[in-house]
């Protein structure tokens, strides 16, 4: 009985932890994110294949909305970035957004 309780509690904790991890974006490495954005996104977001896109083109709230469901981003199917990379990219875009303390000046 007691044992079952512990197992159930552990399972709950693990689930809660995993879920919170998945949704907790931000606080990544913005420096690395800038490079990863260049490597993985800029190749298309260059004004030719896809619109030129800089962090300062959107507000922090807009970036949050964009990354809330990355499945809706058109090219997400082609991405080869992992969760951590994605979080770094998000951190970069979010931290240099239009309404951030330090909006990106150029690419």
């Amino acid at each position: 009985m007691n044992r079952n309780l512990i197992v159930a509690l552990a399972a709950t904790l693990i689930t809660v932890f995993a879920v919170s991890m998945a949704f907790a974006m931000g606080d990544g490495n913005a420096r690395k994110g800038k490079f990863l954005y260049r490597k993985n996104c800029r190749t298309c977001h260059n004004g030719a294949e896809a619109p030129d896109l800089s962090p300062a083109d959107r507000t922090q709230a807009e970036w949050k909305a964009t990354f809330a469901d990355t499945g809706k981003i058109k090219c997400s199917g082609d991405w080869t970035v992992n969760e951590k990379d994605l979080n770094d990219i998000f951190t970069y875009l979010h931290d240099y957004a239009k309404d951030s303390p330090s909006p990106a000046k150029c690419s």
Partner: protein
Amino acid sequence: MHKKMIAAAVMLAFALMAFAGPVAAEESKTPAFRQFHTIVDYAFVAKYAKMPKQKDVMIIDSRPYKPKYVDGYIPTAVSIPASQFEKMADQLPKEKDALLIFYCGGLACPLSHKSAFMAEEMGYTNVKVYAEGYPDFKKRHAYASIGLEKLHSMLAEGEQYMLIDSRPYQKFLEGAIPSAIGIPETQFAAKRGMLPADKAGTTLVFYCGGYKCALSHKSAVMARALGYKQVMVAEAGYPGWKEMFGASGTAVQAGEAEGAVDTDWFLKTIVENPSAITLIDVRDPEEFAMGHFPSATNMTVNMIDKNAADIPTDKPIVFTCSTGARAGEAYYLYMDKFSDAKDVFYLEATIDFNEDNTYEVHPNK
């Protein structure tokens, strides 16, 4: 029960073998292998084991490169392990009448004899074997040489040694092997007070500008004359160290963020010893023209993306921009291209440049 007996029997057999081995080796005082016909002694070898190297003479260490050769070898000797003799035979002198002296681990070791016979078959006419080999040499000679791998492990394990750079002091300042002190060979007598008090317990390791440089050898002989018991020369010297362990001995102080250089260390270095690092300003040429660090080279992130291989790697690389954003990008870009690169950093700080190349640096919070 049965199983236990078998296990016991096996263990007993192993124990017997383990004891039998060394005993058998000690009994056979006369080596069982074919002896080379021309054997030389220490006095003969010592004539050639010094700098500058004599032309048309080669001393060859036939023992395995690791751990034997790197741990200690006869000065000026070249490593050609007997097991790789054929593969490495092109390292032997071109002239067939050159003097070749082979040695290995002493009277019980067949490797030098084996190699000497093979050299003779290749047409070499002046081949000798120093049969008493390295153990005898080490006992009699003022010093021995070591490989940089050995020095590296002494450094990593914090062994009790003192590393001395025998080159002119300016060379030492421009870059040295970590943990070294600079005692130029010409000032050895004047600066001998810098050497450790413990003459028996501390190993002294000398180095200078590589295999052609005699300064470390000369210093080693002088140290021995002062009474130091354990004296070594790392012949490959600073050029070899740079090649093997990358970057200069200038230990870059890392900052808090991943890949960041310590801001205070950076500011001090670009004033006191700017040639110790390769400083790359990744801002646009127009920004660069409005003011930059005096020792910086301009190369935008796009240029680095195309020509990263052009950046010299003999010194630590530091990327800078105006806020740290593009410099950080350059750092990750570079590391993505050369994942095993060492000593690459960026400046995580906000910098205001003036047209006269003065600057103010504010660390980023």
